[in-house]
């Protein structure tokens, strides 16, 4: 599965292109000269020590953070200050957060239909049907009428994944989706992510789940100090890390 044949989609243009992108938080240079191209149906795992800028990088892709230099093009649309473009891109790019960020005042079903109804203008009936379809897919349909506060962390994260799927995104960004979970719940979320991968979803995943990276990713990126230090196929990446800092990181995380 982890071959690099990402081009079985007729549309062969890359879904995300980042060129010479820089970002500062005030004086602090968080992202330095990022260049990254993501093909359709490609799955990328980004790892690195905390504070290395990996979350910031994917948050720039749907403009939760603003970049100051360079270009980001998502599905042919360049991210600028134009609000219309930003909102357009956000409907195409799904996002799954570390802390789920479900809407606690809405039922699970309402969480899932909010975007389709208000942004995509889908009729309610249709939105609910597709929401139920995706809840089945993450194996949680029986909880549709409950509120997020009544669910376990793992269940909430699966709902969050279903919520982003309901918008029919072209790519989903995962920001450390399993780091806030109790250990016994990590697997149920990873299983859902693996089945998404099998369906051919384009995914960019910030994660330290190296097992997931090995079995699912086409490419693994290692970031440190705001730079992409190394990128490779998972086999190569884990067996022959080239960079000293990658070796150090892997030795710490794999023990």
């Amino acid at each position: 599965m982890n071959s690099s044949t990402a081009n079985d989609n007729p549309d062969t243009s890359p879904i995300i292109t980042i060129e010479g992108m820089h970002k500062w938080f005030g004086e602090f240079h968080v992202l330095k000269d990022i260049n990254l191209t993501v093909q359709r149906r490609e799955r990328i795992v980004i790892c690195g020590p905390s504070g290395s800028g990996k979350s910031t990088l994917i948050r720039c892709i749907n403009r939760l953070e603003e970049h100051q230099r360079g270009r980001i093009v998502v599905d042919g649309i360049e991210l600028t200050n134009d609000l219309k473009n930003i909102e357009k891109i956000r409907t195409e790019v799904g996002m799954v957060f570390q802390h789920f960020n479900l809407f606690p005042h809405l039922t699970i079903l309402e969480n899932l239909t909010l975007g389709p109804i208000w942004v995509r203008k889908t009729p309610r009936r249709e939105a609910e049907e597709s929401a139920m379809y995706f809840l089945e897919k993450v194996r949680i349909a029986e909880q549709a009428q409950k509120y997020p506060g009544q669910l376990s962390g793992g269940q909430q994260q699966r709902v969050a994944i279903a919520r982003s799927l309901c918008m029919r995104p072209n790519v989903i960004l995962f920001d450390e989706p399993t780091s806030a979970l109790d250990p016994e719940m990590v697997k149920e979320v990873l299983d859902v992510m693996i089945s998404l991968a099998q369906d051919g979803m384009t995914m960019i995943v910030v994660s330290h789940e190296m097992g997931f990276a090995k079995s699912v990713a086409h490419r693994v990126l290692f970031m440190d100090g705001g730079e992409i230090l190394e990128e490779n196929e998972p086999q190569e990446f884990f067996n022959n890390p080239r960079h000293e800092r990658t070796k150090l990181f892997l030795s710490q995380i794999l023990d």
Partner: protein
Amino acid sequence: MPQTAPPRSAADVRPPVTNIGVLGWIRANLFNGPLNSLLTLTVLYLLWQALPPFINWALVDSLWFSSSEECKAAGGACWSVITANIRFILFGFYPHDLQWRPLLGICILIALLLYSQNRRHWRPSLAWAWLIGLFSMGVLLMGGIFGLTAVESTNWGGLPLTLLLSVFGLTAAYPVGVVLALGRQSRMPVVKSFCVVYIELIRGVPLISLLFMSSVVFPLFLPEGVTVNKILRAQMAIILFTAAYIAEVVRGGLQGMDRGQYEAAKSLGLNYLQTMRLVILPQALKIVIPPSVSILISAFKDTSLVVIIALYDLLKTTQTALSDPKWMGFSAEAYLFVALIYFVCCWFMSNYSRRLEKELDTGR
């Protein structure tokens, strides 16, 4: 000890009698420690001293439908001051034989309020019911159409005026306050500074001075011949004043929101208005129900300050009734009655807010 006795499982063991039931409650709440026991006994003693005389005065020795002379001779409470003046206290200078109209208006209002308590009744048709209800209340009060005799607003007074000022005042102030709170968070500097200046300015002056300005200073700036109804001016002052306080409370709720909620809404592609209306405000307003309600309650009571600009609200009509030489000296009874009306209204508000809080709780 017989060895054959079946061992009692831990689940069978009952708590000691002194921890449960009435005895347990009394012990836990009234006599848990020497200091609390002492306090309980002291309070019981004071109640024993104070309650019987009060009951005697208010209920046993009291007069309900007598003349003022009989009242002065008797030792108990003279509730006759209220029964004799009830129509003036409730309706002020509203023409005597037309007072069924404000009464009917109040009944419509109470019916609507009671019906709206149940959240299952919150349908679009209810909004129409409110519109029609408010409109017919206005027609009833003003007259002039449908063959109803017109009544000048200078003759409005008593309970209808108090309810008018507070119901319109509070329902209009809340949305204005929410908009101000959002404005204060805005990234547009002009909007933001306007809201900050407005809120700080209004909060910096007492309501009395605002009412006074609305009644005395404001008309000076109007072009000649143009007049704005005095009640409307007072109404505006109350709305503007209350909105500033609501705004600060709502801002507190907005700041308590997790940043992740904004981000999740944004990443679904919701725009600013949708994010606020569908995601942020429903949660933020729920958090601030308790402080909002205390502001609404105090604003409700503050409507009695309109006496300063010579509007005859409930409190002023009561005072006026008491200034009749016949009934002088019975202010305690009259004010107790007015206090009861205010209390019932406020109790209704706080009770309802507690229920709403419980109903909206989704176990976060």
